[in-house]
């Protein structure tokens, strides 16, 4: 590999400076603060603090509410990732059959991507509004005794539904371009070799989409971990009783609402560690597995 050498001119540093400053102010500095805070215990009024080593971590890891939130996060993230990938893959395959060659459809389908994300959360709340939400009313008319305000499982259903809904359009676009990247002649050769369309999908199409699928797994897990904060805050606020609070949401609740800065910082440090491990693991796995 050839490298371009810039010598020792300061110009390149100048170019990357804005990005470095942004990362430093909005990421490195708060991260350092969090690490620092996670070793401190503040008094109730935030007047003084004392260095307590790993006591905050110990408290967090042995607290039932944190373990409950961790459990919810695992279930929630897996459900969101798997469901939104499965649904969008199904939709993309059906769409691909129709739009082979027809550009107009493709453009129309792209709109979903542009419209859905900002509106999804709001639409979700309205659909499940106990007074006028269509789905809320429908479910109860069906005799499901649906009540996400009080029932943890129902609340989980609501946040998963909204989170999946918001993510499907993103995944759909990736899958659709993945499908369109498969040469037409390969699909046709498979039509001559295998009569069953289902079998063709699992033996040819799906393996060829594996890189896209793994990439989306990473994206969707990250999304479910972090970016669903807004959805949860807007819809359930972690209720009932913290049964829909992801770890990220719990950091916010404990730190900002509960004013337990030490505990909340310890939680975010734990999150940082988990995410780093997850990221390293995923990319290692992708590098090794998804080559053909």
């Amino acid at each position: 590999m050839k490298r371009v050498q810039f010598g020792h001119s300061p110009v390149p540093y100048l170019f990357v400076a804005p990005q470095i400053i942004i990362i430093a102010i909005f990421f490195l500095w708060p991260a350092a603060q969090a690490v620092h805070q996670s070793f401190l215990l503040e008094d109730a009024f935030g007047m003084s603090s004392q260095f307590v080593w790993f006591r905050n971590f110990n408290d967090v890891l042995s607290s039932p509410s944190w373990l409950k939130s961790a459990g919810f996060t695992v279930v929630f993230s897996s459900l969101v990732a798997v469901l939104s990938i499965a649904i969008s893959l199904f939709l993309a395959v059906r769409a691909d059959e129709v739009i082979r060659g027809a550009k107009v459809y493709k453009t129309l389908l792209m709109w979903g991507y542009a419209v859905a994300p900002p509106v999804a959360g709001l639409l979700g709340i309205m659909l499940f509004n106990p007074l006028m939400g269509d789905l809320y009313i429908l479910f109860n008319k069906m005799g499901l005794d649906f009540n996400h305000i009080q029932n943890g499982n129902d609340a989980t259903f609501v946040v998963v539904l909204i989170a999946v809904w918001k993510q499907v359009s993103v995944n759909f676009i990736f899958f659709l371009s993945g499908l369109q990247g498969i040469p037409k002649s390969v699909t046709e050769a498979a039509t001559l070799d295998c009569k069953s369309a289902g079998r063709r999908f699992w033996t040819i199409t799906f393996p060829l989409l594996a890189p896209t699928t793994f990439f989306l797994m990473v994206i969707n897990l990250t999304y479910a971990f972090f970016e669903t904060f807004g959805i949860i805050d807007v819809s359930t606020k972690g209720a009932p009783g913290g049964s829909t609070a992801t770890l990220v949401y719990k950091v916010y609740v404990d730190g900002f609402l509960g004013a337990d800065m030490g505990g909340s910082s310890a939680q975010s440090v734990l999150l940082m560690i988990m995410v780093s491990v997850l990221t390293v693991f995923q990319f290692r796995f992708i590098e090794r597995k998804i080559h053909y």
Partner: protein
Amino acid sequence: MATLNLKQVEKTYAHGYKAIHGINLEIADGEFAVLVGPSGCGKSTLLRMIAGLETISTGDISIEDRVVNTIAPADRDIAMVFQNYALYPHMSNYANMAYGLKNRGYSKVEIDRRVREAGTILQLTELLDRKPRQLSGGQRQRVAMGRAIVREPKVFLFDEPLSNLDAKLRVDMRLEIKNLQQRLGTTSVYVTHDQVEAMTLADRLIVMNGGVAEQIGSPIDIYNAPATQFVAGFIGSPSMNFLSGRVSNDRSHVVLTDGTRLALDHNVAENRDVIVGIRPEHLSITTPTSSSIAAKVRITESLGAETLVYLTFGSKNEAITLRMQGTHKYAAGDELTLYSNPAQIHLFDQASGRRI
């Protein structure tokens, strides 16, 4: 082993474009048929209709007396080789060849026997465990052919399988395909836009133009007696020379635009407007006679074994190409006198382009 029949086959695409205008064709058992024609004339469309990758708008296609119009591609007992190989990139070469057999429920032992045998025939034995991306273009196309032959189908279909290969490899593979087809004796339909490929491979040539089969016959018959001006210009390289002219009153000559007279021995009506066709290899240099063409050299191309001389003729600067054995050198502007045996002069109707 099978015959292939096309009866009044037509294709109209979804948005109304008519790509195939009624083609009738009977391909005998074990015959190597080549569809040749310029790009866009409907060759691939016709082949894909036989394969079942395109629907048949009207007419019938039958393989061994069974009409296959509504039969799924996988059940037609055909195998196809594509221009861009169309191998499954995530599977080994072995798995690529085995895939079609596996889906048809063959035993592991039988699959292994057939794949290894095809591997031997195509000299792929060492490459079977690799993935397609680890092979050269020529090797990939061999794997694609292996995938077709392990199936032992009734009909092979080839869609420009050599177009992605370089010139030398193309010639080698052409011979290999011919050999393989003769050895297996499988009825084959081969699509190409390359007339040399078509001439060398075909038992029977189908020259297509604008969705119509302009002429069907053996390569030599088509070369010797092209049915239309289009076929005459398409088959043979360099292309046949075309000059406009009119048959004389006594029908013994054709008079070209500048008054030059060429002797004829055709049975043709007097004063008829015609196109005179003479192949470059049927012209020779002579001393001026009453039946010769005087032309000016434009460019000379020496290919070693032969020389191509490009000339212009008459007041309208009509182009003439001359093909000579051996090496010759002419300067631009040199005057040459050309002659053709009347038996080797083709006449076409000026209006319809049909052979006279």
